[in-house]
């Protein structure tokens, strides 16, 4: 592990996490942290365990060893619904919306834990963050385009104003222009709510651009991590993960 530069006080801490689907662990000894208002990205090749890591943090699959904490609370192996209740908004890579439900109903489900009278106000607030959703409220989510769906998915978790957003490859299957808007505009808006954002991303270059800290996964382990700006300047990293000459900062 690299020596630890100064980072803000974390809200999510994972320590030496190992997790898998029942057989041998898919990821081992992964540690990371995310602070409030910070965008942290996890990059790495297909099958390196990025999604598995996120799923273990939010309670979708079991943590076999290690520990996950949110603020002062140990949330290791909490049920998904309890992790959500504790303030984590998880957007899975696929099946991220309730297809047959309308956009408004999707948002209402996101706000399921709110008092019923608060829901309408929160829907309005989500629409103010993602204005494009305003005219789609009555449409069924399955009828929307990929970019719109992802906005619904992020709007759904925004309903509870979580402390932490966990986004699993939000740009998968999106057209490049839409992916660019999503990463550079919409995710920044999520972070501007004061919450932390933990982002798994295939488009490593973009991920580095929008995040303050980056973890690099490979073979189920965390290979390296560091300030995103520093990583984009490191020739070894750029060569093996971005495939090309170092970007000009």
């Amino acid at each position, binding site marked *: 592990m690299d020596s630890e530069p100064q980072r803000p006080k974390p809200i999510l801490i994972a320590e030496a996490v190992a997790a898998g689907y029942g057989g041998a662990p898919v990821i081992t000894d992964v540690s990371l942290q995310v602070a409030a208002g910070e965008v942290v990205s996890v990059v790495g090749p297909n099958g390196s365990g990025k999604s598995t890591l996120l799923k273990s943090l*939010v309670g*979708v699959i079991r943590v076999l060893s290690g520990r996950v904490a949110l603020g002062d609370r140990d949330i290791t192996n909490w*049920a*998904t*619904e309890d992790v*959500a*209740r504790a303030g984590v908004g*998880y957007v*899975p890579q696929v*099946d*991220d*919306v*309730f*297809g*047959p*439900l309308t956009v408004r*109903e999707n948002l*209402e*489900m*996101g706000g*399921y*834990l709110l008092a*019923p009278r608060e829901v309408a106000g929160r829907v309005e607030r989500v629409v103010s963050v993602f204005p494009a959703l305003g005219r789609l409220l009555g449409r069924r989510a*399955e009828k929307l385009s990929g970019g719109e769906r992802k906005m619904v998915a992020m709007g*759904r*978790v925004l309903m*509870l104003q979580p402390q932490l957003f966990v986004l699993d490859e939000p740009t998968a299957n999106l057209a490049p222009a839409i992916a660019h808007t999503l990463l550079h505009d919409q995710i920044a808006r999520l972070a501007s709510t004061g919450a932390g954002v933990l982002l798994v991303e295939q488009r490593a270059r973009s991920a580095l651009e929008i995040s303050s800290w980056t973890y690099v996964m490979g073979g189920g382990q965390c290979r390296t991590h560091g300030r995103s700006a520093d990583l984009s300047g490191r020739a070894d990293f750029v060569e093996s993960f971005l495939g090309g000459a170092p970007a000009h900062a």
Partner: protein
Amino acid sequence: MDIVIASVGFGLVTASVLAIASVAFTMQFGITDVLNLSFGGVMIASAFIAYVVNNAGVNIWIGVLVAGVAGAIISYLINRFVLTPFKRRNTSPIGMVIVTLALGLILENLVLAVAGPNNVSYAMNSGPTLAVGAFELTALQIGMIALSLIIAGAIHALLRLTRLGKAMRATSCNAGLARASGIRTERVIASTWLITGALCGISGAAFAMNSGSFGSSSAELFLVVIIASVFVGGVGQPYGAMLGALLLGLVTEVSAAFITPDYKEVIAFIILLGVMALRPQGLIARATV
């Protein structure tokens, strides 16, 4: 011509009973992911409890309510003490079917052990025969059709307007995402068993009223028709189940009038095969739960 109108009238009554049962069966599958083959056993057990109450001098419509309460309690307990524990162990869907099959066998034979092998009938007054449009139906039959319309409306309101109903639809379409939204899906599922169990019990009593007399194994063939209307409508689709029930209720009764009542269920089966061959996903294809 009279025989057509009369059989369509019977068909509407049968379709009403079938609709209540099919909506409950399909919601159980859609929301809890269990193909519940103990459904017929719960129907008959509830119908028999209504019989005990009715036999003690209580009006049959109160008996129907009692059957609803009984069905809700039995189904809740089945879920709480058998299905949920097996699900927590990651039992495969087919393993769950074996479990419900065993439960159905137990329930049906509990009724046989208590009630004995002879059929029983409710004490009920069919009321005056009324002309509704072209149909001549008894007040009792009209009451059964009204009951099923009320239930269909209530289910629609539940699923579209209430927080619980929307959570049921969310759980049905993606339980994992529902949990990620903070919904305690196990509670939603428990509520589903209570509600659909009540419908199952009510349909059991209504089935017994419609057939005149019933015994411990009377629901076995009816369960086949329920399964047929559920699959014809599209598994897990409440509106599809209502449509399937209407279709199969009418076709089975009209065919009973023209061919022979012995093959009602066979006709239902042939319709099921036809729909499966042409449209395996059912008449209502997309998830509209």
